[in-house]
Every structure is written in structure tokens, then in C-alpha cells.
């Protein structure tokens, strides 16, 4: 067997190629922390110096990755490469699958309601549970803080592009989740292993690609997925959850470090301690928190009903004739797409890992359930947040702050008690997202390093370390790193997804014919 050491070496070398100093990134927290002069009694200064050095290391990676991801192939139209891939990919899937996001919407809801749930089908969870699981990873700070960031940097017009990419992203999600189901591996004990790394490796070989090329697609995806699990699925969450706590109890010295440690401990209880009850309770509370959040948003919008037409006009107007301050038309488009994808992860491939666990022998059926994810996440929740931020005037009130603070300010304008609920939501969303992403990251890690105990424990410890890092490093580069890693996953996933789309189309046509002919057994 190839020793774990060589695989780790391969992983680090890859990161070095994308950003010269990845090794320093992985090592920097530990040695530097030993140099902290805590004796001076100034914990804040020590923390600041650590975070500044960590931030500069991230800066190097971010710069190198951004050079590739945000390279603008057409100088006259400055749209970054990754945005072109995401946009073109989503448009392609939507047209290629003949507007399934619209024609299959009702059927998707029927499936999620359990109408076709056969308890004897292979898999681990029902369609509804698979959707809940995927949503617990996507619904979170992207919907609360991300929308505020989109409006702040792209103006109100960014909301239109967020919604559009949410709608188009539904079919991208369908394509990737169907593929995850087709190429998943059901073990003899009934557990399932699936996701883009598997369908890229096996599927591309079926399409005639040689093994090294197919494996390369799988590996690149897995590496970015691990990066995403440390970034957007971890540090970004820890960072914003800490920010929410700071907003609640004030800036106490050493709070970041303490809270980061507490978060890591709580996540560690589940992923290392094996205390599943905590994770189970969190997963069950999340839909409730979503409900409370949406309800509060609806109340605010009803109370401001007379301002909604004005807000809608503002959104549409600034989308087609955006102000120069927001980078013009292209600037708004790019911001809208980036924030929407960061929130709903359509085209990124992460949710496919969760959906692969669904109990069904019809891959297309789970793909259709997955389609509802971007709709709920972006078209419903993000749009509602955006409307609240706009009707409250938070987006052009400097004292409203940035990110999650802006959303908190917007809600508290009407509902003074809401910030407490929002802070609890932020904490719970962040917690459940971290748990879900630790699973995605670990699956990708297993794909590269194997399933031995040693390999798995290394990943879990690293994951917990990054939580603390995210909590203390409230800095720009860390957030950008999170963004870049998640967006990078779309590269192999969308390109591979397009190559494999004909297989999905054949399955969809067959499924749709049987559905229209009423050939499916109804269990409800």
C-alpha cells in the first residue's frame, strides 16, 4: 500500500503549486503560537500578531488562486473565468435538460413529500432527509451574511443575478446529484459512498477518458473539496459565528480564541467523540430555525408592504443600469453570481455527496429532489433577506455595518428582539454547516488518503484546528480563501458534469416517459 506519508506529500505539493506557501499555512499556527508572549499579559496583541501572520500566508495562496480563477479571458468583457464556467454551465444544463427546473418542479415536491418512498430501496435516508441534510450545509451564513455582502459590493441589482443563478443552478444541482446516484457505491452493510470524485473517476472512464485523466479530475475535485471544508464550510462559519457572539456580548479580550476553542470542542464531540445525539438534535432544530427566520422576514415585509414595489423597482433598475460605484453591469453580475453560488453551492458538487445517500433505485428521482435546494436556499431565503436589507434601508446606512451585522441591523429596525434570535440562528447554522462540511471534506480526504483510522483522525484534528483559526482570524484573506476553494470545486465538477450530461439525459428521458405513463408505484 502506498504509505500515507506519500499521499500527504502529494496533497501538500498540489497546494504548493496553487499557492507557494501552503506548507507554511498548515504549519504556521502551531510554531507561532509557541512564540506568543502571554507573560506580558496582552492576549489581544499576541492574537493579533498570530492572525496577521496567518492572514499574510493566506494572502499568498489567495493571490495565486485568484490569478487563475478570476482571470478574464475576454478583456473587453471583464468576467472572471470561474463565473463564466458557472454561468455557462448552469445555462447549458438548463437548456440541455429542457428546463427541468420548471417542468419538474411539481414532481420534485411530490417526491420530497414521500409519495414514492419505498423503504426497501437501497440507501441510508429518505428523499426528504437527503434534502434536509444538503440544506443544513447550504442554508446558513451565505443566506444571512452573504446576501448583505452581495448588496454591499454589488448593489441591490445583485439580487436579480442571485435569483437567476438560483433558478438556473437548480438544473446544475440536478445533473450532479443524479450522477452521484448513478455512480455511488452501496456497501454490503447498506452504507453509501458517492459524490463527484467517484462519478468523475468512473464516469469519465466510461466516456473513453484514460484512467489517469479521470483520476486527475477526481483528485482535483477532492483537493478543492478538502480546501472548501476548511474554508467556507469551516473558517468562514467560525468567523461569522464569533462575530455574532461579539455583537451580542461585546469585544472581550481573548473572546475569539475562547469561542473558537469552544466551537472546536462542540464539533469535536460529534466528529471525534462520536456523540451523535448532539448532531441529531442540531439537524432537527435547523428546519425550525429556518422557519423562524423566514417567518420574521415575512412579518417585516408585511409591515413594510408599501415599500416592496419601490424596492423591487430599485432592484430591477440597478440590475440593468447599475451604478459605477458597484463596478458597473459586470461588477453587479459577478458579485450576484459569486454570492449565490457560495450560498447554494449549485455546480460546486458538495451537496451531491449528501444526496448520494438517498434511499432509491432511481437516480433521476433524487436529482429532482436536489433541484429544490437552490430554490429554497437562494430564490426563497436569500431573496427574502435581500428584501429586508433593502426595505429597512440597511444597505445604504453606514452604521448598519457589514455582512451579518448589516442583516442584524436590518431585522432589528422592525423587530427589536430579533438580533438575539438571529445570533442563536447564526450559531446553529454555523454549527450544522461545519458538521455537514466535515463529512464532505472527510469523504474527499478518504478518496485521497484512504479509510484507515490514522488517515481519518488526521483530517478530523486538522478540521478542528481550522475552526479555531477561523474564529481568531477575522480577516479579509481568510474569507476570500473560503470563497476561492468552494468556487474552485466547480472547475472539475462542471466540466466533468457537461461531459457526462448525455448519460443523465438518457436516464431522464426514460424516467420522464415512465412518470408520464404512470408506471411508478405510489407509496403514500
Amino acid at each position, binding site marked *: *500500500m*502506498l504509505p500515507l506519508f506519500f499521499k500527504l506529500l502529494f496533497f501538500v505539493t498540489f497546494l504548493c503549486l496553487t499557492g507557494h506557501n501552503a506548507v507554511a499555512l498548515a504549519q504556521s499556527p502551531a510554531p507561532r503560537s509557541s512564540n506568543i508572549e502571554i507573560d506580558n499579559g496582552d492576549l489581544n496583541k499576541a492574537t493579533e500578531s498570530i492572525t496577521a501572520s496567518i492572514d499574510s500566508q493566506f494572502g499568498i495562496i489567495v493571490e495565486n488562486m485568484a490569478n487563475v480563477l478570476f482571470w478574464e479571458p475576454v478583456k473587453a468583457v471583464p468576467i472572471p473565468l470561474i463565473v463564466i464556467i458557472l454561468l455557462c454551465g448552469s445555462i447549458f444544463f438548463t437548456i440541455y435538460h429542457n428546463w427541468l427546473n420548471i417542468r419538474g418542479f411539481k414532481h420534485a415536491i411530490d417526491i420530497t413529500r414521500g409519495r414514492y418512498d419505498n423503504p426497501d430501496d437501497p440507501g*441510508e*435516508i*429518505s428523499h426528504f*432527509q*437527503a434534502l*434536509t*441534510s444538503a440544506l443544513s450545509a447550504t442554508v446558513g451564513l451565505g443566506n444571512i451574511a452573504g446576501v448583505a455582502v452581495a448588496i454591499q459590493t454589488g448593489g441591490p441589482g445583485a439580487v436579480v443575478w442571485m435569483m437567476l443563478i438560483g433558478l438556473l443552478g437548480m438544473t446544475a444541482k440536478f445533473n450532479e446529484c443524479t450522477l452521484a446516484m448513478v455512480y455511488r457505491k452501496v*456497501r*454490503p*452493510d*447498506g*452504507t*453509501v459512498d458517492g459524490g463527484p470524485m467517484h462519478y468523475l473517476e468512473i464516469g469519465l472512464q466510461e466516456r473513453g477518458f484514460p*484512467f*489517469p485523466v479521470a*483520476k486527475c479530475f477526481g483528485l482535483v475535485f477532492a483537493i478543492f473539496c478538502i480546501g472548501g471544508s476548511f474554508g467556507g464550510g469551516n473558517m468562514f462559519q467560525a468567523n461569522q459565528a464569533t462575530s455574532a457572539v461579539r455583537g451580542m456580548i461585546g469585544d472581550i479580550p481573548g473572546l475569539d480564541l475562547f469561542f473558537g476553542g469552544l466551537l472546536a470542542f462542540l464539533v469535536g464531540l*460529534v*466528529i471525534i*467523540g*462520536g*456523540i*451523535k445525539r448532539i*448532531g*441529531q438534535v442540531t*439537524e432537527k432544530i435547523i428546519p425550525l430555525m429556518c422557519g423562524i427566520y423566514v417567518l420574521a422576514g415575512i412579518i417585516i415585509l408585511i409591515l413594510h408592504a408599501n415599500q416592496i414595489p419601490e424596492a423591487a423597482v430599485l432592484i430591477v433598475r440597478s440590475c440593468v443600469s447599475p451604478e459605477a460605484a458597484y463596478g458597473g453591469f459586470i461588477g453587479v453580475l459577478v458579485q450576484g453570481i459569486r454570492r449565490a453560488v457560495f450560498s447554494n453551492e449549485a455546480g460546486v458538487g458538495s451537496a451531491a455527496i*449528501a444526496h448520494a*445517500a438517498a*434511499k432509491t433505485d432511481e437516480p433521476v428521482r433524487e436529482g429532482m429532489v436536489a433541484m429544490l435546494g437552490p430554490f429554497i436556499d437562494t430564490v426563497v431565503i436569500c431573496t427574502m433577506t435581500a428584501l429586508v436589507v433593502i426595505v429597512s434601508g440597511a444597505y445604504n446606512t453606514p452604521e448598519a455595518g457589514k455582512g451579518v451585522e448589516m442583516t442584524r441591523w436590518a431585522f432589528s429596525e422592525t423587530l427589536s428582539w430579533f438580533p438575539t434570535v438571529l445570533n442563536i440562528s447564526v450559531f446553529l447554522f454555523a454549527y450544522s454547516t461545519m*458538521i*455537514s462540511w*466535515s*463529512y464532505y471534506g*472527510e469523504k474527499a480526504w478518504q478518496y*485521497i488518503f*484512504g*479509510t*484507515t*483510522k490514522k488517515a*481519518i483522525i488526521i483530517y478530523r484534528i486538522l478540521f478542528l484546528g481550522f475552526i479555531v483559526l477561523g474564529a481568531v482570524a477575522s480577516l479579509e484573506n481568510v474569507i476570500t480563501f473560503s470563497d476561492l476553494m468552494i468556487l474552485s470545486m466547480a472547475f472539475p465538477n462542471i466540466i466533468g458534469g457537461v461531459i457526462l450530461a448525455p448519460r443523465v439525459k438518457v436516464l431522464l428521458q426514460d424516467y420522464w416517459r415512465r412518470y408520464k405513463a404512470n408506471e411508478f408505484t405510489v407509496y403514500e
Partner: protein
Amino acid sequence: MALHASTVVVPIDFSSASASAINTGLEIVENPSQLYLIHVMLPLETMSPGVLLGDVTDVSRTAKVTTALKKLAETHKATDAHLAVTIGTPGLEIADYAKREKADLIIIPSHGYHGLKRLFLGSVAERVLRHAPCRVLVLRRPD
């Protein structure tokens, strides 16, 4: 030279290769009750959707695999074979089981991958070879 053994461990991953390993085992032992079939399950991830939202537990997994093992033994006319289901790293668990049962032979198929596949997939057979307390018969892939 004929191979003789009275306690033979055969790891089962339910592939066609492990089915042929049972046949080889039956040729060696005098009685099917001298065969010890083991399947090793990977530890459950507490954060997996099946554990958090579904009803996947070690008990439910063990029951499922035991039923499948029984069925497999029946199809090979080896209903007297001993069956075991454990959780852990496959290579190490197989070697431990052989130690516990004082086996004098382990029969394991090798997938026989080469090049990159070999590099990334590794081999349970190799790990069994390194840790086994007894002789190990590695069956080559037919091609």
C-alpha cells in the same frame, strides 16, 4: 504439494473474487465448519446523513451483513461455516480474527491493480500479509 489446514479464515467483501476464495477454502478443508468467514465494516462517521437523520446504526449494519453472509455461505453449501462481522481497518481486523480463532491459513483474493490504480487503491491483502499470524494464500486476479 497439497495445502492442508484445519482452521481457514476467508475475508469476504462480497465480490466475485471473495466467492472464489470460499471455493478454494472448501477444497482445502475437510469440513465446511473449518471455514471462518469474516466481513469487516468501516467505522460509521457520526456526522454522516445516515446516522444523523436516518436509522443507520452498527446494530442495523451488522444484522444486514450477517444475513448476507449466511446467504453467501448457503449458496456455497457451507452453512456450517463460522461467520463474523467486525468494525475497523479491514487488513488489521482480518489478522486479529485469525489470531483469535488460532487460524492456520488465511485465503484472500488480491485485486491485482497496477500503476496508478495500485498507487491509490492500496491493498487489503498486503496489510493482511504484514500482520497475519499464520500462512496467507493470496489468490491472483484471473486475468
